[in-house]
């Protein structure tokens, strides 16, 4: 993939996509009538949340592939997705309270959606700490895969929380029931923003996988020198 779509070109496409997304967020999307300007946090908050959930799903897939095939590439992919997914999950937890405060009057509440997102963030940390501090080859990957499976369950609960329970967090406006929905311009804006965030996600995962490959190469050379 790196030959077909070099990293520098990928980065340039991502940055251009972000410029379009920012134009749409601040100039194209209409001002929401009830919340006003602050509602524009929606675009970055929701698309980061979708990407963080997708990231955890990819960690889960990579981990299952590793458990099944013992594939080094699948494990590298899972590890990279976990690290980048953690960054996106952090964005969700930062932008959420900044939107909640002016709209709900509180920074945070322990409702089902917010709590399950916070648990997802903690699970991302658990996964990354496990990878960093348990240095038993073979075993680390298996333990991390187990954490990723638990995380996948939480990711489903997180996604479904606002559908299963009444929460302080709004009911879904996208993919929700009757009466939910968005102005078409808001729809285009959120889709373009999500596209930009996904493009950045893939870019960061590619760079992170490259790091894992460099690390393995260094380890191999160290072994050769020690032999």
């Amino acid at each position: 993939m790196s030959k077909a779509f070099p990293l520098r070109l990928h980065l340039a496409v991502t940055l251009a996509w972000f410029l379009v997304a920012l134009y749409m967020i601040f100039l194209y999307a209409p001002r929401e009538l009830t919340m006003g300007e602050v509602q524009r946090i929606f675009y970055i908050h929701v698309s980061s949340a979708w990407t963080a959930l997708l990231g955890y799903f990819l960690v889960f897939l990579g981990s299952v592939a590793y458990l099944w095939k013992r594939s080094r590439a699948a494990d590298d992919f899972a590890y990279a997705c976990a690290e980048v997914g953690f960054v996106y999950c952090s964005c969700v937890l930062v932008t959420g309270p900044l939107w909640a405060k002016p709209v709900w009057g509180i920074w945070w509440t322990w409702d089902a959606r917010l709590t399950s997102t916070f648990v997802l963030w903690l699970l991302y940390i658990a996964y990354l700490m496990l990878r960093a501090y348990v240095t038993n080859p073979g075993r680390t990957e298996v333990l991390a895969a187990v954490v990723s499976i638990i995380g996948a369950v939480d990711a489903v609960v997180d996604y479904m929380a606002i559908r299963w329970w009444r929460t302080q967090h709004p009911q879904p406006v996208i993919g929700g029931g009757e009466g939910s929905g968005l102005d078409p311009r808001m729809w285009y804006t959120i889709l373009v923003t999500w596209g930009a965030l996904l493009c950045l996600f893939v870019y960061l995962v590619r760079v992170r996988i490259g790091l894992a490959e460099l690390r393995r190469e260094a380890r191999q050379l160290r072994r050769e020198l020690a032999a």
Partner: protein
Amino acid sequence: MVNRYLVAAYSLVWLIFMVYAWSLSRRQERLKKDLADLEARVREASARSDAPGAAGYKS
């Protein structure tokens, strides 16, 4: 009027990504430097073992 929550949200997201990108590039630089050092050491070691008389030293 510019909404301070809106500005804070987008600024912090930008900051989070910048910090992560910086951390990735620092790790990449360090690994590339390590690799270059290791490759030089491997080359040196193989040159020493290929040198005439190297076997004699070994025995």
